[in-house]
């Protein structure tokens, strides 16, 4: 599904990713763990195509195709979805309006027919119900005045509606209480399938009790420094990141 080879990235002359390698197979849920500042969000932005980053070397292949030359909207249409660590507010644009614009834009880019309004409304309502998002929230400006937890649910709703094949979750657990964490995790688990892969970025092992990963990668200083199965997360929980900080330094 996704293959990253020898990725070197800097921003404002500051080197952040230092020859990162990572492979995520079809249907795999890969977790990335690492201390603050190790470059996890940078990695997610670079995969999604945010400007300002300088790609010094390496490639990112989605199903064998290099995405580095593609605009963010083209990457989205190709199936890359990023659930933001800090979702943005779009005042005056009703959430429903935004969802429709996004869904129709992606369908159009993929050469699919537009959804009928009835079908669109049904999907949004069902999706919102499953995530415990009240219907009247869909009429409000996107993310405007939403609590941290509501914003994260809204990210998962968008993910469910857009049906991407490669989903990145950047610290989706941060700011969630235990109930919200369960709802969000269930939302993610419902989307798991053999044609869809996940990159779950988190700082804490807690999330991985709910979204159980197939593989765990430890990131430090812009590199994947250790990979293993889900037990690696528990090991990190016990020992902390101290070992890795010195290891790569």
């Amino acid at each position, binding site marked *: 599904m996704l293959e990253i080879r020898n990725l070197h990235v800097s921003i404002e002359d500051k080197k952040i990713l230092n020859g990162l390698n990572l492979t995520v197979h079809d249907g795999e849920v890969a977790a990335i763990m690492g201390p603050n500042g190790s470059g996890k969000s940078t990695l997610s932005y670079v995969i999604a195509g945010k400007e300002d980053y300088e790609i010094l070397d390496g490639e990112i292949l989605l199903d064998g195709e290099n995405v580095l030359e593609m605009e963010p909207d083209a990457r989205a249409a190709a199936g890359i979805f990023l659930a933001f660590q800090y979702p*943005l507010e779009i005042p005056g644009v009703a959430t429903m309006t935004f969802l429709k614009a996004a869904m129709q834009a992606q369908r159009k880019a993929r050469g699919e027919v537009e959804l009928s309004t009835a079908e669109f409304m049904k999907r949004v309502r069902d999706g919102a119900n499953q995530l415990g998002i009240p219907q009247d929230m869909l009429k409000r*400006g996107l993310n405007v005045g939403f609590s941290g937890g509501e914003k994260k649910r809204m990210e998962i709703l968008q993910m469910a509606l857009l049906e991407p094949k490669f989903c990145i979750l950047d610290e989706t657990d941060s700011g969630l209480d235990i109930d919200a964490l369960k709802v969000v995790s269930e939302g993610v688990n419902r989307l798991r399938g053999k044609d869809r892969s996940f990159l779950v970025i988190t700082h804490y092992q807690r999330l991985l009790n709910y979204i159980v990963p197939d593989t765990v990668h430890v990131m430090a200083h812009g590199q994947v420094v250790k990979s293993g199965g889900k037990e690696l997360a528990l090991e990190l929980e016990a020992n902390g990141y101290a070992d890795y900080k010195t290891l790569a330094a």
Partner: protein
Amino acid sequence: MPAVKETVDQVKAIDVDQYKYGFETEVEVDKAPKGLNEDIVRLISAKKNEPAWMLEWRLDAFRRWLTMREPTWARVDYPEIDFQDIHYYAAPKKNAAPKTIDDVDPAILDTYKKLGIPLREQEILAGVQQSKVAVDAVFDSVSVATTFKEELKKAGVIFCSISEAMREHPELVQKYIGTVVPVTDNYYATLNSAVFTDGSFVYVPKGVRCPMELSTYFRINEKNTGQFERTLIIVEEGGYVSYLEGCTAPQRDENQLHAAVVELIALDDAEIKDSTVQNWYPGDKDGKGGIYNFVTKRGDCRGKNSKISWTQVETGSAITWKYPSCILRGEGSRGEFYSIAVSNGRQQVDSGTKMIHLGKNTTSRIISKGISAGHSQNTYRGLVSAHRRATGARNFTNCDSLLIGNKCGAHTVPYIESKNGSAIFEHEATTSKISEEQLFYCMQRGLSEEEATALIVNGFVKDVLQQLPMEFAVEAQKLISISLEGSVG
């Protein structure tokens, strides 16, 4: 979001520097020589077959104008205007006074058609537009056609050019003209009083709700010509009218002056809704050419419980200097001002409103949305005042600015004067930027950069667009996106 999609398609269809209405119409014109003096004032008055009192009124204005100075307090910057280098009258020669639409020069009818304003009633009726809109078409210095006059007449509504009103209804014109914007109000208004050439006149009698939207479409075509139009709208007790004006001009390297005066008078329980979609040529991306739009618009809520509402969508002009205002004289009267001012390229906007509370329990509401992009400067300047007798006066002002890019400027200059302790004035203001982060977020969801910008801007101006008559809201939304084309990235 069909509107967004249409917007985007339209934006894509045109070049960054391509003002869609920039074409020029070839017509033979009857033009006054360049320059301004008493003879020119007399010539204009003679061309219009005006009554003698009108000429005296003009001459008086002209003499006063000679003693006045151009105001310099606005945050706009332009080279000195040579008032002797302008033609003050230009009219199409062919069929100077068309009696019916069939007498109008086909080149002019074509011009309006190209602008999307059909003037033949059967074309309007055959069109897709659901509701009827009566149009007065002003081409340079003269009104060339007014539609649906007969139908309006049946309802008792007078809708015609101000030149015609001066001949056909002199008593009404004489009674009201200059009573809201006095001859000596300000430099440009005084100039207008001396040399105004045409504009629209509306009279709605007691108890009549005007059966359709009225609109005037102003077109500057001739080179080196100023347009000085004058609009006068009177609504008697309990009447209602919704009036809209639109404006465009050809794309030219030299600047052209447009100095209009609009006066509204609402008597007891009357309501006037005045909307403007202003799209004069803004100049090119380096600031060459464009219209200087120096306009005085004022409404007088003369009667008790009367209401005047201004809705302004401004995307054009090199310089905009305009403060549509309300004098809230009648007890319980209400003034509203909704505005979207978009500036891009080298455009300069200094605009806002004045809400002058004179009567008891008068209320006003100001919602202003400024969008600045490119190297433009966009200033909101607003006055809210309460006279000492204006017990119970209330105002709410909300003034938001949106910046696109980091070479433009947004400024807010509110003035508040209260001489009555019971007046309650509230003021809110915000300035925000379309951030790279917001754009990236939208694009990550699959929207293109243009779609993302259109969506964010539409969200920003939504509250004001809702105030426009339906037929014009979609048009205005498109216009805003087109004006901002090329401003991101």
